[in-house]
């Protein structure tokens, strides 16, 4: 039973095929990693799946519904959430407010009660804040709740984005390099967090360069090269695939991988 299926996705930018005939599917509770050298089309693929780019070909199905070409907020309403490789934090809002925005779809949001701040608005605000604080605690940012997000260190921002994405209670979570720029301890924490999220039944799609992390937590791995699928399989299968070793890890990397 898959929840997200992308079939034969393709997109070109000025004649360059950034993504060409890529497909994948992921089931609830599963972690699928997408790896490949820089420029392989991983982030572009994410931008297509989350509705930011319109693909020139291919289809995307979310829980049996054809969602190809839907806008990002419509996809979010159907349970798709994501983080960004280059941080997209709401800089001028506090960490807590960032996560509260993540609960946007779970809140009743009508204009007139907001303008006159009815008691129901105040009550809902309290509930949203409590939920946001719980999420901040789960990514280790409880103490930073009322700090402006723009003044948080890089690793904290990465985790804040994950908390914000989780606030929407997604069924599918796309994580674009969640461990980039994080130290070993932070990477370890993110590793635990992703595992927890998947164990709750969320389908996780991960783009990551940290091979240790990818090999450890992925159920399946899709390897891209220059916008095309190169290989797909379990971490072991992918690691032992000579094509992958050659293209992605290189000769030197292959020797290291063999020793690992």
């Amino acid at each position, binding site marked *: 039973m898959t929840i997200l299926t992308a079939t034969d996705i393709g997109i070109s930018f000025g004649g360059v095929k950034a993504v060409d005939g890529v497909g994948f599917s992921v089931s609830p509770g599963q972690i699928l990693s997408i790896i490949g050298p820089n420029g392989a089309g991983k982030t572009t693929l994410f931008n297509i799946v989350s509705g930011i780019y319109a693909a020139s070909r291919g289809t995307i199905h979310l829980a049996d519904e054809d969602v190809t070409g839907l806008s990002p907020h419509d996809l979010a309403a159907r349970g798709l959430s994501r983080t960004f490789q280059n941080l997209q934090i709401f800089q001028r809002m506090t960490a807590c407010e960032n996560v509260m925005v993540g609960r946007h779809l779970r*809140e009743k949001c009508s204009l007139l009660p907001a*303008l006159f701040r009815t008691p129901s608005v105040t009550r809902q605000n309290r509930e949203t804040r409590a939920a946001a604080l719980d999420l901040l605690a789960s990514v280790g940012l409880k103490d930073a709740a009322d700090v402006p997000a723009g003044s948080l260190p890089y690793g904290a921002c990465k985790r804040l984005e994950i908390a914000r994405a989780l606030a929407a209670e997604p069924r599918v979570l796309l994580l674009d390099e969640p461990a980039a720029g994080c130290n070993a301890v932070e990477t370890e924490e993110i590793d635990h967090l992703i595992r927890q999220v998947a164990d709750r039944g969320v389908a996780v799609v991960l783009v990551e360069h940290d091979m240790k992390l990818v090999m450890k937590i992925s159920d399946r791995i899709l390897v891209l090269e220059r916008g095309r699928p190169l290989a797909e399989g379990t971490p072991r299968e992918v690691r032992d695939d000579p094509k992958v070793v050659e293209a992605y890890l290189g000769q030197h990397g292959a020797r290291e991988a063999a020793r690992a």
Partner: protein
Amino acid sequence: MGALLNQRFMTLAVLAVVIAVLPLVFPSSYYFRVASLVWVSALAAIGLNILMGQAGQVSLGHAAFFGIGAYAVAIGPTHLGIPPWAAILVGAVLSAVLAYLVGRPILRLKGHYLAIATLGLGVLIALVISTESGWTGGPDGMPVERLTLFGWRVSGSNTWYWVTGALLLIGTWIALNLDETPTGRAFRALHDSEVAAQVVGVDVARFKLQAFVIAAVYASIAGSALAFMNGFINPDQAGFLHSVELVTIVVLGGLGSIVGSIVGAAVLVTLPQALTIFHEYEHLLLGLIIIVSMIFMRNGIVPSLSGLFLRRARS
């Protein structure tokens, strides 16, 4: 949360006290009139600040909505027999509908392109007002009937001081209310990162439109108040220079700061009055003061000064 609630309450309380106490130091009714002009400009600026400071969208034609509010209370009672108080509502509804219809296509534009589109809207409305002289009196303007509420004839600088002061308090209260709500957060989120707001489910087009409509209604009501207060209205109120003045108030006071818009209005309305003693150098000095304060307080008066104050308090 408690602190924020208090901050909102404190802002309103201080504003109410300032409005109540200022008349004690006013030597003549001229001061009441200048202060009323400040309250009216501040009201329009607060609305524009929700659009510009919170939602991060620019409008260079905002005086159009100010003009619609003003001309609604002039034309409604004179030509159509609408009671003056109801004409305020007619103006606000007209402004809201126009903002909604025009906002849908133009709020897709970003930055400079949006600025030019809103500028076009402003020029267009001002042009209609000054050419439809059968209705509007053309470039010469037209008189406005006095406002009567429940048999009470609202007139005189002192009376209008209190009426505009009350309007400003209500406008401030509503603007502060928005801050800690899903709508207010959606505004600020799409300002900081439109793409991130979209992927958490914020319908960006819808919220930009809401902010635009709110700002239009604020300007319209401020326009109605000014028209009643002056008893006369001319197309300048809907013109480009007035739009620029509103944007200047918002930026000078501080983008995103409600208190900033009130302070900005106070500076920009009273400064020209104070500078009249310098006769021909008046405009030169006004321009210089604005340039210098933007250089030294680039976040606007209120955010810059409160930032400075907080740093002092900490060290």
